[in-house]
């Protein structure tokens, strides 16, 4: 896969969004695709953080939820248009992520997953309990970007956001920051000794990926139109992790593959009830972790080394 | 003199393209102290690790008493009577010295009477740790910690004690303290010792026999007194040879 291909991928997504919006999909299929964009943004940015920067955070769904609730607040209380929130919330959540990073990235190693896990838990309790602000489990309702149930706009928007994600990802991985992140992932001490400002790079990675999570959350809020604390659960985080891990952590298109696989499974087993879906998906992810540690992409690339030599970043 | 340890053509390689030991032969007489010296990168430490079973042996034989041990894993070699005191700190810092010693007899821990006897023996052997048996090992000086490790290595009543640079990183005062105790250990004639050392003078002073390694192979060997006599030439030789391209 050449650099050119990497740059074509965003266009592909935008084109797909446009094309699908014209076909007139069944709502259930459109839903599946649009919410897949939400998951792609989350799994993709989590992959940037964990797979490329080596920082394993469990706050990602929490940050997306913050983005969604922030969107609702701006729209309901602030009277802003949903479109504005799609720009504002990524910035706001990046700041939130930066604050969290200041606490969590001070110590290296297992502390980051633990602190971010704690953040997610505390934030979930807050969302449910601070009902005067968040309306508790009654949830918040906000108007959609377009009134009614027409999904064609969201398909286009989804295509654009997915494309945008890949542009940001290309910019990061092919740019300076991406290289510094990966150097820190591979050996923090040596990177430090070479002159890399470790903390700054980590915070930057944390903030950019938080911004993408915030964008995902804002997109979700503007699309679904109802928010509840149940949006933030460790089960959801499990989904996102599973998507990144199944596809291949540390690979550009790993999360995309993971999202496609998991969302397809979800689509085909959806009649079975939530527990079945979860058993199947976490079961598969577990098997991948144990037997194909680097995910589907790495496995395929080992089977076909020549064709896939350049898949790795 | 009967040989407690016999090494024949020992080869060790960490990676396939870099062979650190390229066929070393060595004999260690029962209850004697054999010192192994040589320039940096000669493969001295690697030799001990190969014998202890913590470095990958790719060829050769190791006989301990009548037993071939090169195929055993590290834990099995402990059982067979090999005791390794590595260069890095291996003391249990938050346990007392006594508890450290107790763990030295791990493979025969069920035999309480034997264990108590060995602990008493090893505690007695090293005068400079004897007053500190109840102290936390981590609170002792670097030299004393090293002595605790050596004493711990003896509790299990090994047939072979491998000491890897016991004074590396210690101050001269501590070096002398450690060697005073190693000398006492040798006088006790209770165990066969292979000692790798950079402090050649100290090593020669306590050794019965000395092997010189260079570039992963035998260079020369002889009784300690004889090697001491040729020492100036040997060392001058190293200074022109040092850095043979091998890691130590």
């Amino acid at each position, binding site marked *: 896969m050449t650099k050119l291909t990497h740059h074509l991928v965003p266009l592909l997504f935008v084109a797909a969004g446009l094309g699908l919006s014209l076909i007139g999909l*069944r*709502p*259930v299929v459109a*839903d599946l695709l649009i919410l897949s964009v939400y998951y792609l943004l989350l799994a993709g940015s989590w992959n940037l953080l964990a797979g490329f920067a080596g920082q394993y955070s469990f706050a990602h769904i929490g940050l997306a939820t913050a983005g969604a609730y922030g969107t609702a607040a701006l729209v309901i209380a602030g009277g802003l248009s949903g479109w504005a929130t799609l720009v504002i919330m990524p910035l706001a959540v990046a700041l939130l992520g930066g604050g969290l990073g200041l606490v969590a990235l001070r110590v290296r190693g297992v502390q980051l997953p633990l602190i971010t896990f704690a953040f997610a838990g505390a934030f979930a*309790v807050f969302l*449910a*309990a601070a*009902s005067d602000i968040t309306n*508790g*489990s*009654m*949830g918040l*309702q906000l108007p959609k970007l377009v009134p*009614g*149930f027409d999904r064609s706009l969201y398909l286009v928007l989804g295509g654009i956001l997915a494309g945008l994600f890949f542009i940001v990802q290309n910019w990061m991985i092919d740019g300076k920051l991406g290289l510094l992140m990966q150097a820190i992932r591979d050996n923090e001490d040596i990177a430090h000794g070479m002159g890399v400002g470790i903390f700054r790079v980590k915070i930057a990675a944390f903030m950019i990926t938080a911004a993408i999570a915030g964008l995902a959350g804002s997109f979700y809020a503007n699309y*679904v*139109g*109802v*928010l*509840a604390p*149940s*949006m933030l*659960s460790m089960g959801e985080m499990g989904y996102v992790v599973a998507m990144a891990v199944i596809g291949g952590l540390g690979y550009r298109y790993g999360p995309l593959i993971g999202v496609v696989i998991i969302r397809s499974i979800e689509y085909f087993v*959806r*009649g*079975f*009830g*939530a*527990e*079945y879906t979860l058993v199947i998906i976490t079961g598969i992810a577990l098997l991948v972790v144990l037997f194909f540690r680097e995910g589907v992409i790495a496995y395929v690339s080992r089977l076909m080394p020549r064709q896939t030599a350049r898949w790795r970043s | 003199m009967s040989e407690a340890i016999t090494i024949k053509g020992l080869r060790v390689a960490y990676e396939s393209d870099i062979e650190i030991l390229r066929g070393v032969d060595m004999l260690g007489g029962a209850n004697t102290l054999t010192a192994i010296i040589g320039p940096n990168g000669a493969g001295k430490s690697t030799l001990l690790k190969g014998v202890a079973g913590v470095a990958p042996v790719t060829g050769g034989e190791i006989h301990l008493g009548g037993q071939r041990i090169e195929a055993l894993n590290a834990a099995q070699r402990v059982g067979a009577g090999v005791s390794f005191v590595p260069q890095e700190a291996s003391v249990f810092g938050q346990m007392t010295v006594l508890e450290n010693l107790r763990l030295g007899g791990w493979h025969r821990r069920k035999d309480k009477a034997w264990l108590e006897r060995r602990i008493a023996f090893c505690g007695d052997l090293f005068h400079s740790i004897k007053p500190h048996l109840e102290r936390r090992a981590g609170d002792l000086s670097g030299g004393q910690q090293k002595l605790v490790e050596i004493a711990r290595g003896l509790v299990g009543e090994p047939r072979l004690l491998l000491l890897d640079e016991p004074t590396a990183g210690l101050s001269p005062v501590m070096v002398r303290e450690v060697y005073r105790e190693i000398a006492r250990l040798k006088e006790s004639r209770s165990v066969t010792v292979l000692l790798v050392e950079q402090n050649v003078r100290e090593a020669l002073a306590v050794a019965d026999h000395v092997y010189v390694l260079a570039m992963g192979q035998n260079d020369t060997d002889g009784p300690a007194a004889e090697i001491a006599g040729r020492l100036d030439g040997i060392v001058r030789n190293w200074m022109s040879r040092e850095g043979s391209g091998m890691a130590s």
Partner: protein
Amino acid sequence: MINNIGKISRRALLASMTAAGLLLAGSGSAYAAEDITLGLVSPLSEPGDARSGDAIKKTADLWVKLINGAGGIGGRQVKLAVFDDQGKVEVGASAMERAITEANASAILGIWSSSVALAQMEVAKGYNVPLMAFYSWSDDITAKNYPQVFRIGPYNSQIAAQMVPFVKDRGYKKVVVLAEDTAYGLGFAKAFEEAVKAAPDVTVEVVQFQAQTQDLTAVMSKVAASKPDAVIVQTVFSATNLSIKQGREVGLKADIITGWDWPLLPDFWSTVGEAGVGVVYPTFSDPSLNITATGKTFVDAYKAAYGHEPAIFQYYLWDNFNAVKAAIEKSGSSEPAKLVETLPGVTFEGTIGPVFFRNEAGTVNFHQWDKFAMFFKKLNKVGDGEKEAELVQVAK
């Protein structure tokens, strides 16, 4: 096998859901023109109140079976399209939309949580499809006056208002409302604070707690320390039982009034034990209720099918289904839009009396049936059920 019954019903559930899934996956023609499809969106798995969801599903299955056995509605067979809302608002809303767009449901029933119902109302409005609420108590559901939304069942402000005379008559001066942090708990607490203004000498304190909590001991210690005369517990989760058990454990002496029919659920006495003695529960159900012929048919069939009596909310659900049936019969069509037009005017014999909607625009009594009585019943010994419980007071 840990739980045979649970297992079997789950398998049945699975089978029916798979069937629904297959139908959905297939083309629209699976829903033949002569079939009427009704959407059932209920909490069937965690974190939703799956306990109640299961009861809802049983009632709905039974109703469909009876109707189809009797030749359907106007000769047309009825099908149920079942969706799980998992107690989540966003899932409930999208499930509702799927029920409408994929399954072509004529009306949506079975909704449980007020939070979910409030989100679904927007979908109902958008697609102009009737949404039938039966035990979601938020005033807003009918107070918003959406033409598509109907409720045969009680609502918070009415319930709260009916509780005030009880509180006054019992001489309670200090009342704590222990409310879970959901629409159900807090919605009631708010309504009660409002209603109790009619009794100026009664002070009310609302104590909020996490709905999914497993330990209320600390909360109950605080409640006990404030020495109230009565504690009104408003929760559907395990806290119903926990609050009683742990309240007594930490020395709570006050009367406990715990909503609604939960003390009649099978796990009440096994979890609460001695602490349950003296508990008062308000209910809409009492042997003195005048069960109609329709109601008897339901109760008998339910007992025959599942081996135990239905709870009162299942009666309301039954009436909801019959309301849809009445509207289809009256309009001669299963078009959702037609039903929205027809439903406000239907009258029929419900399970406990005639059912008709009040249609007072601008108030909560819009598309709302409210002819139910409230009974306060006391459990005097371990193991007391509905029949043994002492009727303390009736509010109408």
